């Protein structure tokens, strides 16, 4: 995950919530967001100009992405609305293969002339780079889909909800937290709409309308006498849904262990803000953890980030091959381990799938950013590494004929490349609730919500914090702990997974801002799981005095 965005958005350092602007994003009037800039036929005509120009200039493959990217941020602090920003970014990115080499160029001049000139630049870049090229690009075949469309199945378009309603909702949540004794509260509603049109020289013309929604807050308590302070973020998840996620329906609430309330398909921000204020005070008063080995019971709002870092990233084929060596790093899941067919990534309980179709997830689209229809596939089956995440120019390296459909670009102006699909731990097959799981633990910690996170560049050694930590003693919750972080080796950790709760407990969490590449690009991705148990994990105490 990209660090600055995480700090700024999640308020991990108790800072004010800053707004991460997408590159080239321009704030616009809310009413203008609902206007269509170009209709599908106009986009097709423009795309055809690029496709024809590239073909004439010797390109063996071309794709065109005409994109309109909208964001809205409404930010508040205590009793004040701090900022209302609408951003829009519109332009085209054109990618070609010439002499077996990729070339890419982008422009916000989306006219017939602009398409032609941008295509010429992409071709020129491909030709220049082909001098350095050692491995010509080999694209896996993908069907031509003709003229098709896909839309996130939203009920309520958040961009159509009046700004005043959003401000009122956030200020209402802030008031609840302040009433319950919070010292500070920042809150935000962050909406994304990607209107993407894709056309390729292989005959696909794909129009997609993608929506994402993320309500979040950071409730802080300060004990001036001792100088301690703690923050508790919202128990919401960023989702691939519309504004209906904020409906907070009773059937989507879950009574969790330790008296906490968790949320599934919709979210009640007012209730959660009040609960956060109560919990953040308990977090300050909690007992400092005794370091040692514990059985960890990890709730889905926490486990998603561990899955993301320790399974999602090392199974990305571009990392395995060395394309990210200078920045994000490589992977311990080398090709020989996969080829062996028996590399024991985890215990038999560990079944992990990659997916780009799951309803409500951040990664769900109909087609990826190189025109491949999306699907679900296995990464870890009964504990064994069985596949990677790969796109059209990579799958030949692992002897496969079909792209996995996980190519993505954060905007029209950035080149698309392999990005993480939703990577999720499948629920256990036997009936098991979190309460039943905890009842079987003698000495353990139940961890809720993601906190601090760090992992090495090949994804062996990691350290994770959390937000709420409950001590488990002889099968029962025995109060709150603080200063907890756990350290493990990825393979040992997943082999220590002894139980996963059943599908009734399965929930999605995720992030808007997974960072990768140079220049760095953001990707939104969800990770699902049910509560899972990991035995004998090393827990450290993180308290220090300065």
């Amino acid at each position: 995950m990209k660090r600055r965005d995480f700090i700024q958005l999640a308020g991990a350092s108790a800072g004010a919530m800053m707004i991460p602007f997408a590159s080239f994003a321009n704030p616009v009037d809310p009413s203008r967001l609902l206007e269509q800039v170009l209709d599908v036929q106009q986009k097709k005509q423009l795309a055809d100009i690029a496709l024809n120009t590239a073909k004439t200039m010797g390109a063996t493959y071309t794709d065109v992405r005409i994109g309109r990217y909208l964001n809205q941020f409404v930010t508040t602090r205590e009793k004040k609305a701090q900022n209302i920003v609408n951003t829009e970014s519109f332009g085209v990115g054109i990618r070609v293969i010439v002499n077996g080499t990729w070339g890419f160029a982008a422009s916000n001049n989306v006219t017939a002339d602009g398409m032609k000139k941008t295509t010429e630049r992409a071709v020129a870049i491909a030709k220049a780079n082909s001098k350095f090229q050692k491995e010509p690009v080999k694209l896996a075949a993908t069907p031509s889909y003709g003229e098709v469309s896909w839309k996130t199945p939203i009920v309520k378009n958040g961009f159509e909800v009046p700004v005043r309603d959003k401000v009122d909702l956030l200020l209402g949540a802030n008031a609840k937290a302040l009433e319950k004794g919070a010292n500070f509260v920042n809150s935000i509603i962050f909406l994304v709409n990607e209107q993407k049109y894709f056309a390729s020289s292989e005959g696909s013309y794909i129009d997609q309308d993608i929506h994402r929604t993320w309500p979040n807050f950071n409730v802080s308590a300060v004990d001036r006498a001792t100088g301690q302070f703690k923050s508790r973020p919202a128990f919401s998840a960023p989702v691939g849904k519309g504004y209906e996620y904020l409906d907070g329906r009773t059937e989507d609430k879950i009574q969790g262990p330790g008296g906490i309330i968790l949320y599934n398909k919709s979210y009640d921000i007012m209730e959660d803000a009040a609960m956060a204020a109560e919990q953040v005070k308990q977090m300050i008063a909690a007992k400092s953890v005794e370091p040692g080995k514990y059985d960890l019971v990890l709730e889905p709002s926490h486990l998603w980030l561990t899955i993301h870092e320790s399974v999602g990233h090392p199974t990305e084929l571009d990392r395995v091959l060395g394309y990210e060596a200078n920045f994000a790093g490589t992977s311990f899941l080398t090709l020989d381990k996969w080829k062996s067919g028996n590399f024991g990534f985890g215990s038999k309980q560990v079944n992990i799938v990659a997916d780009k179709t799951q309803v409500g997830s951040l990664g769900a689209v109909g087609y990826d950013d190189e025109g491949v229809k999306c699907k679900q596939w296995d990464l870890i089956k009964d504990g064994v590494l069985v596949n990677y995440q790969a796109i059209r120019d990579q799958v030949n390296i692992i002897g496969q004929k079909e792209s996995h459909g996980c190519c993505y670009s954060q905007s029209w102006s950035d080149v698309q490349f392999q990005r993480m699909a939703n990577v999720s731990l499948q629920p256990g097959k036997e009936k098991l609730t979190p309460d039943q799981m905890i009842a079987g633990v003698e000495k353990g910690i139940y961890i809720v919500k993601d906190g601090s996170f760090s992992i090495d560049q090949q994804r062996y050694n990691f350290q994770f914090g959390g937000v709420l930590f409950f001590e488990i003693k002889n099968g029962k919750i025995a109060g709150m702990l603080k200063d907890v972080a756990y350290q493990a080796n990825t393979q040992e950790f997943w082999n220590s997974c002894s139980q996963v709760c059943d599908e009734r407990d399965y929930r999605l969490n995720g992030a808007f801002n997974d960072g990768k590449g140079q220049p760095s690009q953001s990707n939104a991705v969800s990770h699902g799981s049910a509560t899972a148990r990991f035995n004998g994990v090393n827990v450290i105490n993180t308290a220090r005095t300065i």
Partner: protein
Amino acid sequence: MAILTKDQAQALLKKVLSYSKADECEVNLTGTDSANIRYARNSVSTSGKISQSQLVVSSAYGKKLGVATINEFDDASLEKVVRRSEELAKLAPENPEYVSFLGPQTFAEAHTYVESTAAITPKLRSDLVAQSLQVARDAKAVAAGFLEDNTGFSAMMNSKGLFAYNTSTNTNFSVTVRTEDGKGSGYATRGYNDITKLDTRKATQIATEKAVKSVNAKAIEPGKYTVILEPAAVAVLLENIFFRLDARQADEGRSFLSKAGGGTRLGEKLMDERVNIYSDPFNTDLPSNTWSGDGRPQEKIAWVEKGVIKNLSYSRYWAEKKGVKAIPGPEAAIMEGGTKSIEELIAGTKKGVLVTRLWYIRDVDPQSLLLTGLTRDGTFYIENGKIQYPIKNFRFNESPIIMLNNLEELGKVERTVSVESNNNYLLPPIKVRDFTFSSLSDAV
């Protein structure tokens, strides 16, 4: 439109302001030409060139503020963006923290622009990459790297008469070299305003040497060690101090600079007395902009002097409330060093660890500024003044405040780049005792 001269920028901004009907209006204008080449597996993987410009218009009616931007510059678009910001201001609730825009200020000329960087040719860019690739290929090693250059300008004007303008150039380069068997890895990074100072061949030689020397690393026990941190490793730790100098956070009790019992630690000695940290936009090795985004002049500011917290940064609102000078946060930070090279620091070390790079740095506890992360791309065991052998990477859990209390020695300052933020700093290599490594990593 990418790079405008001062006169062109002034004329454009005046025109934008002429459309304003709000109580107050402020306009910020930026333009950048940037280009990059990325390579991996000894071959170019992607490259791009992009021009972008943006006009940001802030309109205020009383304490109601609206912001809109555009990247089209015809008269109709300019008027449209002003109207749009005014409409948003009318829709916005009143913000009690709104502070009226600044009046005219005096700004000194910045030294951030170097013509040779602005005049870079595609050939020079590809030559710089080719030189790096050649070093790796000659050594039968595998290089992955990234070269990026930017030329840009920024300008602002408001209805109260403030006008500011600046141009800048910058280039950042980084390279990771791995041995073919994947058992050794080395890294180097460079940042300059002037691209003629960039020697990609030499940087890649250093990375290659580290890769070769780090093969077959031995595992040693985690624990507390005397550590020599190269500047690239120092940067990712210390910038967590630079980013968190905000007075409001400290006053509100939610910063490492908050004091138990109330108040802040401003004026308290928190680190070894040899620690001096400041920012100076006029430093010739690390020039930075002479004005902040809201039009405040940037001056030389001491943040830590002889280990004492000397200044905190303020928003204009918070400074007004507290009745103090509104000092903006540092644009580029500098830490004073000593005279010794890294080799001399090693020569004076009986037992210790040389850390060339740190990676994946994250907050563990904002109260103590405890950070975690790992060593990467060359970690070595030192005994009796000499590097003895490469060692396996460690995870650390350490606070830069505690670390700067355990200071042994400072080396010679050099310009370096943070791999986390991409920011450039002037920092020394530092030698500290009792640096906490908490576990081993198998990563190379």
